[in-house]
Each structure stands twice: as C-alpha cells, then as structure tokens.
C-alpha cells in the first residue's frame, strides 16, 4: 500500500486525513431510481477492449451490476469466403482470423485438410511447424503482456515487449517474406524452403528472450501496484468456466490441466519435452504467471527443435497437392503442368469431414473442414478460443469495479478477429 498523508485544505483545515481515513469512507447504498445507477457504453472504439468490442455496462457508482458484451464489429464473413475458394487459397484467410497467432491458425487448417487427404507429412516439416508455432506463441504472449501492462498503467513493459517481438517478426520475414501474415504452413508442409542461416538467427533471438522474459516478469512481480491491481481480481468458479467453454491460460490458471498439445498431440508435439504450467489462484495475477511460464516453455521447445531438427524434405510427397520445386517448374514439362493444374483448378479432397484441435495462445483452437469431393471446401468452421472465452465476460464482470474490468479483459487475452471472424 502506498503510505502517505493527504493534507486537505478545506473545512477541516486542522485535521490531516490519511489514506486509511479516505479508504474507509462508505457511500450510502443506491436507491432504485437514484442517480447513482446508470448505463455506460464501453464502445466499440476503446483502447482497452483490444479491438472493436462493445460492452454495455450497467453501473451502480463504480461497480458493474451487469455487463453485456456485443460483438460482430469485425465480422468479415471469412467462413463464407472460404467456401468460394480453393483449399490452398483459404490459408491466407486463416492468417487473418487470429491476426496475432497466424501460424497456429495455418497449422490447424492444414492439419485438418491433411487429415481429409490422408497425407503423410515428413518429420522435418513437422518439427519446423512446431518450432514456428511456438515462436508465434511467444510473440502473441509478448503482445498480451505489453498491452495488458499498458492498460493497467505500466507503460515501459509495452516497449520492451514490442522490441523483443520485433526480433521474432524479423525471423518470420526471413522465412516467408512476411512479418505477420506469413501463410508459411501450407497443406503438405511448408511454403518455402527454410532460408540459409535460420538456425543462428533463431538461436540469437532465444538468447535475448531467455533474459528478457525473466526481466519483464521481475519488473511487474515486484511492483506493489501491479500486485494490488491483479491479485484477487477476476475470479470465476472453475466449474462455471468449464461450463461456459473457457479454455487456455484462463482455465490453467484455475488449476485445470488442459492443453491440447498434451491431450491430443499433433505434428510431433509428443516428441518434445515441455511442461504445462498451472496455478490455482484463478485471478488475473495467476493468468499472468501462467502466460509468463508458457513463454519459457515455448522457448524450451524451440531450443529442442533447434538441437534435434531432422533432415529431409520439407514438403510431403504428393505432387497433386504440393506445388513442385520452382526451379524444376521452370525447366520440366510435368512440373509445369502440375503447377498450373494445382494453382488454377486446385486439388480435389475426398468427401468427408475433419475436426482438428490445436493449442492457440488463447486456448483451444479447432477447424472443422467439410468436403464434398470438389476442389472448394463445402464448409470451414473455425472454433476460435476468444469467442468462447468472451462468453464468460458477462459472468466475470458482475459485481466488479470498472478499473478491475480493464484488468480482467486484459487477462482474457481475446482477439476480435478470433471472436468475429
């Protein structure tokens, strides 16, 4: 607690009020129809809602009685667009669904389609996918940390986090030419051959991250303001959270050990050695700790991938699905024809449906791809974690102060592209 004495020069000029005095003031209870109760619109344009989210708050003074989140401001009909495109053309759309963890979405969609096609992905491609997805997780958590701290008031953390994230974005640019919307994970493997020097580049980034994560956690954990604002805030009973469909770090901070990477391993995750951090406090501070620890575990996974990366092809052996090597395409007739056919007509996927679950930085991400035997998907449904997590916002904000609501929304780490698609 900040200790100090407030000197109030007013009627009681002789009496010095201390902070303890001021905090003990009780306001009279609100009467129905009294002027203390009103409806406030936390509009779609707001710096702390992390996107275009509208929350209609019914307030009693500073306490929220009822909160109703309204979404749909970022709805762009991605699922509808997927039905008009070829299977490989859907991948850039998946980048933009959760625009802070692009590669995780690419991976989920590619795995679902590969299930329908029954494609075997070579180990090198699987390990590269895991490595890049874990780097994406670190990048996404860095944004979460920066913006969460910024909302609560710790502005310096924001700059440090974005500086680190810049290095990770440079890695993505090195691989795919794009910083964020990489579309690097394609059906059948990767988009391009891994560039020269990627190993040293990622090692350097990891060295910085290892020191940086500890430093940023220390900046906040030893800060009494941070502790005051995040401890004991935003608690919702575990069974209510499970019933509402909440997943990810929010559930792990409540003690439930649910992580899709361990429960339904995919893309060689079972070969990596990592822990799933959990806490039991179930408040904003616990979620902060869980995400910081997840960053460390992701760094650990990337290190293992660097050390043990298998050699071999980075694309599956499926000439009717995977684009041929560019140089061969320029000189060999068959490769040119395959390239032309894949790009213009696409490839047919056997009729059926596949539901693939992965662990996004926000929780359980799943794609449900329904195929009717043609080259266009019949339906692509994106089970995005932020949509389900945001459902819990109404329940979580009941009886909470407005200032705490900002901390809670930051700890939920939702992305509106994920919510609205």
């Amino acid at each position, binding site marked *: 607690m900040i200790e100090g004495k407030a000197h109030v020069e007013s009627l009681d000029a002789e009496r010095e009020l201390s902070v303890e005095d001021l905090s003990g003031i009780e306001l009279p209870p609100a009467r129905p129809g009294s002027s203390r109760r009103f409806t406030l619109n936390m509009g779609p344009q707001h710096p702390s809602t992390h996107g275009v989210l509208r929350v209609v708050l019914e307030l009693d003074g500073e306490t929220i009685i009822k909160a109703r989140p309204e979404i*749909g401001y970022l709805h762009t009909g991605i699922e509808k*667009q997927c039905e008009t495109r070829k299977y490989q053309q859907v991948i850039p759309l998946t980048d933009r669904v959760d625009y802070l963890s692009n590669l995780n979405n690419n991976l989920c969609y590619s795995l679902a389609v590969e299930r329908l096609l029954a494609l075997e992905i070579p180990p090198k491609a699987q390990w590269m996918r895991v490595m890049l997805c874990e780097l994406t997780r670190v990048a996404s958590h860095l944004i979460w940390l920066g913006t969460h701290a910024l909302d609560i008031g710790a502005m310096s953390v924001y700059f440090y986090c974005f500086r680190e994230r810049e290095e990770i974005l440079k890695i993505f640019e090195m691989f795919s030419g794009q910083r964020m919307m990489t579309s690097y994970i394609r059906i059948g493997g990767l988009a391009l051959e891994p560039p020269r020097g990627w190993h040293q580049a990622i090692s350097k980034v990891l060295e910085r991250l290892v020191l940086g994560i500890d430093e940023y956690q220390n900046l906040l954990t030893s800060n009494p303001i941070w502790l005051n604002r995040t401890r004991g805030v935003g608690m919702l009973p575990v069974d209510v959270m*499970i019933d509402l469909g909440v997943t990810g770090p929010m559930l792990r901070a409540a003690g439930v050990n649910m992580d899709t990477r361990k429960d339904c391993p995919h893309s060689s995750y079972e070969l990596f050695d990592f822990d799933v951090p959990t806490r039991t406090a179930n408040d904003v501070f616990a979620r902060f700790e869980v995400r910081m620890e997840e960053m460390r575990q992701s760094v650990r996974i990337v290190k293992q991938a660097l050390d043990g990366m298998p050699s071999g092809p980075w694309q599956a052996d499926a000439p009717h699905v995977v684009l041929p090597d560019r140089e061969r395409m320029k000189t060999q007739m068959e490769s040119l024809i395959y390239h032309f056919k894949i790009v213009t007509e696409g490839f047919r996927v056997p009729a059926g449906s596949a*539901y693939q679950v992965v662990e996004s930085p926000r929780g359980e991400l799943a794609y449900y791809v329904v195929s009717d035997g043609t080259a266009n998907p019949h339906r692509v*449904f994106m089970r995005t974690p932020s949509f389900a997590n945001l459902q819990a916002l109404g329940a979580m904000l009941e009886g909470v102060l407005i200032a705490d609501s900002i901390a809670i929304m930051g700890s939920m780490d939702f992305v509106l592209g994920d919510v609205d698609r």
Partner: protein
Amino acid sequence: MKWSEAVLPESVAENSTAAAIAQRLPDAIVDAKMAIDGPVLTIAAKEILPACGLLKQSLGFERISAITGVDWWPGVPRFELVYFLHSLRHNARLRLIVRLEEDQPVDSVCAVWRGANWYEREVFDLFGVHFRNHPNLERILMPADWEGYPLRKDYPVHGHRYSYQDE
C-alpha cells in the same frame, strides 16, 4: 430407425459412450460412424436435449467445444447441426450431428451447457435455425436489423445489398 447395441456398426459399438446412449435412449441414434478424433453420432432432432443431458450428467462430457451448422442445399434435409463435445476427465471427444429440414426448430441445449448460448445464437444468425427455449435468441455477428441468413448456400457471397445499379 431404431439402433440398438447389436445394430451399431462395429467400429462404434466398442465405444462405451455410443453404447451407453444406444442403451438408455434407444430412439436417439439414427446413424453412427467412427472418425479419427472419436465417434460421430447422428441424433434425431427431438432427442438432442435428453441425449446431451445424459452425456453431461452420466457420461462425463462436461464441456461443449462448439456448435455449428452446415448447409446442404439443395440437398434434403437441408441443415446439419454439429455439436462438438469434449470430456476432460476421459480426454475424449465426440461429435453429434442433427439433420434438420429448412424450417424445423430444435431444442436449445443451453440448459445443459451455458457455453452453448453464443454458439446457438451464431447458428441462428448465420443459418436461420430456430432454437426453442434459448434465453436470448438474437443475432450476434450480423447487425440486429439484418435480413437474410448469410451462411446459407443460396445467399450470395457479396450480400444482397451490394449492388451499384440501385444507387
């Protein structure tokens, strides 16, 4: 069509969940098959609420992962509702499918899982499927005064209002 334990296809009959449903709600399962991530059971529309209640209370499916729809127009029955269930304690997943005609309503499962609320609103918003006994069945992604159901196959990608000729 009635499926009993003896009539379930072999791959699914071994699955204890499917067998339990077939035993306690004999009219519920209309079709069954096995997918990579677990069984896929087609449930009759009027039995979806008791089946979900049974799955949550006795068979351990505490979580509903998502609910979505698929439009098979011009095929009949037109809509296919898909329920994705997840059991944390058994680490098992289950898919339930309900086939619906064009204007056929279905019971809401919000009473079983609170998390079904927004998903059913989304299916109503984008497909026009009506859920009975839903706490607040209104549009969630589209604006409240929108006409039409965008994810239906007879709804154009660019929407009905997108026309330069009228303006």
